[in-house]
């Protein structure tokens, strides 16, 4: 249709309503609206909420979950689940800290070039640790044919166990550079270099999910495994790659969390897998597989931590966060079911 015909035929009232309804049923529009409403409500409750400092807190928290949530998006779209990512965060943070301290011989007091060198190698070690957990998951799921829920529950337990064994249950302090993880300017610019790096990784992951074969196969497997196999897709190999990706992103997150603490702690990932699943579901993905968007997950995670920061600033007891998140999940899932019936 050309511009000309568009201007000539004025949309009727019902068409306009249909358009509005279409926008209203668009998941990301709803999520942005929810986010705006939350910000407005919290700002009314506590005017200081609307500040670069709050934004920095929210973004820094967001960075410690959004990558595993993006990995979880791939996993959930493929029809699976990965409960091991919280444990992988702890394990990779501990292993990276142990490596920097014991192998590279860097103390928490190290400065300058040594720190950069240590953190770069530490990041690689953390990613490889997470990747290893992911590969074990992939092996258990595709070769041992263990359902993803059970397989990743097992690696979650084992991962936490190893993290405690390696660290003797105590955080391992190592070299760090807090400027990487701190807001560039606390009063005007809430972004940090670490958050920027996280955003770059998300964009790449999003492009591969929505624009490349890797993503199409992920949707195909979650949508209809039989059809995917019939179309010649190597389903097992692809699933291993998806769990490996989820693990590697958890490893990277392990390093992010290490940098926030300046230490690798065996308890640093506790419950993060549930935050990630919540974010993915709020973001519109279906646990049945085949449905989900990286953008939805990004917004879902942002909503999660906006609620958390907002409630704290408004003086609400932190336990209420769990209740509010539970309501958000219920509403998100109910909205999905409603949308399906509407079709």
């Amino acid at each position, binding site marked *: 249709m050309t511009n000309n015909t568009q201007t000539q035929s004025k949309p009727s009232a019902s068409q306009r309503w249909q358009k509005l309804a279409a926008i209203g049923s668009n998941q990301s529009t709803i999520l942005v609206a929810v986010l705006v409403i939350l910000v407005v409500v919290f700002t009314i409750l506590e005017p200081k909420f609307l500040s670069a400092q709050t934004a920095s807190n929210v973004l820094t928290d967001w960075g410690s979950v959004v990558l595993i949530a993006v990995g979880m998006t791939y996993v959930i779209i493929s029809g699976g689940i990965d409960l091991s990512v919280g444990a992988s965060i702890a394990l990779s943070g501990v292993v990276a800290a142990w490596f920097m301290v014991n192998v590279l011989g860097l103390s928490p007091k190290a400065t300058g070039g040594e720190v950069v060198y240590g953190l770069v190698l530490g990041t690689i070690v953390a990613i490889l640790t997470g990747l290893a957990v992911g590969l074990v998951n992939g092996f258990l799921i595709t070769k041992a044919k263990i359902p993803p829920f059970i397989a990743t529950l097992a690696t979650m337990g084992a991962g936490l166990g190893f993290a405690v064994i390696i660290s003797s249950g105590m955080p391992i302090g190592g070299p760090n550079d807090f400027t990487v993880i701190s807001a560039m300017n606390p009063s005007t610019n809430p972004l940090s270099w670490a958050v920027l790096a996280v955003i770059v990784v998300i964009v790449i992951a999003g492009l591969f999910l929505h*624009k*490349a*074969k890797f993503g*199409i196969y992920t*949707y195909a497997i979650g949508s*209809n495994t039989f059809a995917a196999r*019939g*179309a*010649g897709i190597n389903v097992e190999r692809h699933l291993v790659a998806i769990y490996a990706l989820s693990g590697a992103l958890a490893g990277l997150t392990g390093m992010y969390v290490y940098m926030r603490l300046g230490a690798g702690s065996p308890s640093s990932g506790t419950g993060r897998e549930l935050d990630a699943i919540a974010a993915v579901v709020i973001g519109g993905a279906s646990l049945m597989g*085949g449905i989900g968007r990286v953008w939805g997950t990004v917004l879902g995670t942002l909503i999660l931590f906006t609620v958390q920061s907002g409630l704290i600033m408004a003086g609400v007891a932190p336990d209420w966060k769990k209740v509010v998140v539970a309501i958000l999940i219920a509403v998100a899932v109910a909205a999905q079911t409603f949308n399906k019936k509407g079709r």
Partner: protein
Amino acid sequence: MAIGDVLYEAKNISKKYGSVVALDGASFKLHAGEVIGLVGDNGAGKSTLVKILSGAYTPDSGSLFLDGEQRVWTSPREVLDAGVETLYQDSGLAPHLSVSQNVFLGREKVVKGFFGKLGFVAKKQMEHEAHRDLEEVGIAVPASDRSVSQLSGGQRQAVAIGRAVAWARKVIILDEPTNHLGARQASEVLQIVKNAKKKGLGVIFISHTLPHVLEVTDRIIVLRLGKIVKIAPTSEFTGDTLVGTITGTIQTLKLEGD
């Protein structure tokens, strides 16, 4: 390949699941430009045979020949690459993907250069070509970018068949292609089968709807309890004798298929 050449041949194919014999020494030949009907009651071994022919299962014994060359399939991918397409009963498409993503599933067109090597797909080109290919096959195509879950049952089936016909270079295996279709849509499907035959493809047509089998096939293979009990030209059957042969009320002498 010329009309009448043997395209795909099965020799003594057997398959057991535990102690259950699903297929017992099945042999037949499919010629270029021929439509073979494969009929039998539930549990007769039709699905097992289809899955062996399409590379989803490996037979316990027996051999397969494509264009006279013996082939041992190790994956569905190899069979597709060899020019044999299969439409599986009811479950050939991924409902959450678009029409064009389904048509090109497993064979995506990628963009040129570095990003193509990373697997980035040429979406517009695939949508355009999917539309064109389906139209060529003779299918009233819904928009290429629509999600398959938004299509009616008939439209889905049309897309699935269109995909098989568009990609097939030698053989098409259609498992219950007219299931759940209205009369008009079913006759469209039968027309597509006839067109494929004219192009010189070999078609294996599996169906419980015997009038469709009688209308569109050249020969019929009757399976009963894992065994081929009769192979004969379609003209030798009437609706009644075909039912009798399937159920076993008509005694059969196994004919060697040529």
